[in-house]
């Protein structure tokens, strides 16, 4: 009974994410190419992470997926990000839908809604507002504020280092700073959680299929770290990763 319930719950979470998918395609349904010279609606689906993590304490499956549809003026994007412990809970489960619009030559602004629905802790829903784009020296940057009664700021920086035109080393840093205490989720105001990554990928088939290996390191700081320590949990986790990214 317990196992059945568990499975059902997992499925509910997955379905919650997937349900957004078809919804967001609706406004662009008549995506047929129009007249000559008229910019057609375009779309893309890609993973930025799809990997197996093997750390000291646990093994898990992690993903970061983005699907988008739109034109030069407006894009609708669906994002899913999560970590599922092998044989266990969804440790992280974030789903986001955003409307994205160019604000400068290199940056888009976006507004959207986000849901954080991991297992074992209360669900959180946010309105989100942020920017994403390409900073000088080719750093891919994203920063957003997630607004609710448990607001936080999230930021990401990524860089693609071309060892060759196909062998690509990607360092990344992801930062999450809660603006208020959220004791039920074990986070403290202004105490950041940081995730560092270094992944070496190879573009096997065009840019469609790119297997990679790397390392991922997560660490809590400040009050958030204290809460973890008090709960007897580790404040840092280093894992090796092996994965494969898709881009269609």
């Amino acid at each position, binding site marked *: 009974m317990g196992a059945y319930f568990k499975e059902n719950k997992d499925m509910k979470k997955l379905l919650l994410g997937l349900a957004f998918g078809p919804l967001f395609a609706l406004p662009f349904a008549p995506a047929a190419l129009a007249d000559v*010279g008229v*910019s*057609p609606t375009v779309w*893309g689906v890609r993973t930025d992470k799809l990997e197996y993590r093997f750390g000291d304490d646990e093994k898990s499956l992690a993903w970061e997926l983005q699907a988008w549809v739109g034109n030069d003026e407006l894009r609708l994007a669906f994002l899913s990000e999560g970590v599922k412990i092998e044989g266990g809970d969804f440790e992280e489960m974030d789903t986001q839908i955003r409307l994205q619009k160019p604000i400068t030559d290199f940056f888009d602004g976006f507004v959207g809604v986000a849901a954080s629905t991991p297992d074992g802790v209360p669900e959180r829903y946010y309105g989100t507002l942020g920017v994403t784009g390409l900073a000088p*020296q080719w750093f891919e940057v994203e920063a957003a504020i997630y607004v609710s009664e448990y607001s936080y700021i999230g930021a990401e920086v990524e860089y693609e280092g*071309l060892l*060759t035109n196909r062998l690509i080393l990607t360092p990344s840093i992801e930062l999450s700073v809660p603006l208020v205490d959220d004791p039920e989720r074990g986070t403290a105001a202004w105490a950041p959680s940081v995730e560092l990554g270094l992944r070496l990928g190879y573009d096997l088939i065009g840019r469609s299929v790119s297997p990679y290996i790397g390392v991922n390191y997560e660490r809590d700081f400040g009050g958030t770290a204290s809460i973890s320590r008090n709960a007897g949990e580790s404040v840092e986790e280093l894992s090796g990763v092996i994965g494969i990214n898709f881009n269609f």
Partner: protein
Amino acid sequence: MKHTNILRPLAVMLGLALSTAAQAGTYDITVDKIRIDTGTFKKKGIGYNGSQTPTILNFQEGEDVVIRVKNNLRESTSIHWHGLILPFQQDGVPGISFSGIKPGETFTYRFPIEQAGTYWFHSHSKFQEPDGAYGAIVIAPKGGEAVPTQRDYVVQLTDKHPHSGSRIFRNLKGSADYYNRAQRTVQDLIEDAGADGLKAALQNRKMWGAMRMMPTDIEDVQGFTPLINGESTSQNWTGIFKPGEKVRLRLINSSATTYFDVRVPGLKMTVVQADGNDVKPVRVDELRIAVAETYDVIVQPREAKAYSIIGESAGRTAMVRGTLAPSANMVGPFYKMRPKPLLTMADMGGMMSGMDHSGMDMSASDNSEIDMSGFDMSGMDHSGHDMSGMDMSGMDHSGHDMGGMEMSGMDMGGDLPVVPAEGAAGASFYAPGSGLIPTAASSGKFLGYEDLAARKPLYRDRPATREIEIRLTGNMERYIWSIDGVKYEDADPIRLKYGERVRFKFVNETMMAHPMHLHGMWTIIDTGKGAYDPVKHTVSVAPGTTLYTETEVDAPGQWAFHCHLSYHMAGGMFRKVIVEGGPA
């Protein structure tokens, strides 16, 4: 595909032909889904008359043609007769000339052939042209060719890609560098550091990185297999000659996005025609054919051996070899591709003016130590302080130090160097110092627009009645293409008056070359030769340059005007031109 018109002799006998002196030929073309095999990959595509070998339509000057086009696709199609002067309803652009050819439908084009030369035809619907819908047109002149030859071959180039056109477009919109596999790597950095010193190499990276532009951004779409007449290097298209014969090669570039540098190693090529119009013969070793252009060249192989026709992409990412030989089954030698060129600051001139400086804090990236000596600033000719009208007062070049390169203080807008510029032969139509300036493999003569002179003036030379500025604009990172910053869907048509002579001022504010094609009327490139300026249908405007053309507005109706790079056109670098007045 030409019918032997058995009725014609009968008609002549009956005297019916008295009503018109012109011949009339009927031609049939089917538009089919086909399998394309390039020898390196196979894919589904579109072909005329069921073949990946391009159909050649042979017309006579003065003939009235009837062309029946049967659409066997499951989507609408169209055929545009590229370079032909005809009534606008016959021009084949859906939404402008007509409403297209529906699946299963046969559309009959009828128009008089009022010109001679080498042209081509292609679909103007969706991405059917990159998918394979193109063919050649050869029109024999009334009085015979000005330069007679014993052999006559169409050499039609294309850049066949394993991805469909719509997928390529989608991928480019998702990531503009999707197909750029010639980007600079850590290995290049190490090599450059070895050659120029680590500091210079790093500063060069920093400079380009600050602009978020790539000096390797020459070919949008790489990974294609170039074909000559539907055949790749391994399939080896071959033209037969007897030693000593003159061979006319009708070069046509039907690529989606690729410029080709064409040569026949060991032979001089005499250019006798450009875009269907005869030019005064010029002997060259090599020429660059922009997308949609045609050049007729004559070669005279004297030895009984296999010669190669080499088409090397301008970005040096792909190459094709065809053969000229005294007998079939001979194979011309293959040559190594030359090193890849890099764009320079000269090619960036227009980007500077078009850039959004507000979002770019150059001070934060500490340019005070950028040493400009590490890369080619020759195009900016600081020594003579001749910036061709560019206001560089905001830039402090003292000691080649970009000391606080205040982009905001740089007013480079509007006045890009005008071509033809003073410079080495073959370089006149590029920004001075451009990285795109080609040189012949044989280190001999490379054709430039400045070498082209009309054999006979097509029009009386007269001053233009007015000037229209066409700014070629875009955002490389987002893969957005436009004219005057406005895409086709948001733009008003350009209105011309019948009988006027318009001077177009093309200002290329992007870092890519754009082959601009005006339908229905000729484009006379201002090379400073007056009445003898070359008359073309497509003009390539190099990055960071200003180029002038003139057009006698002698064709009423509405016409398409666009960049002929398929994905720039689809993105919106396109205008409708309406010619008001004139004969109905």
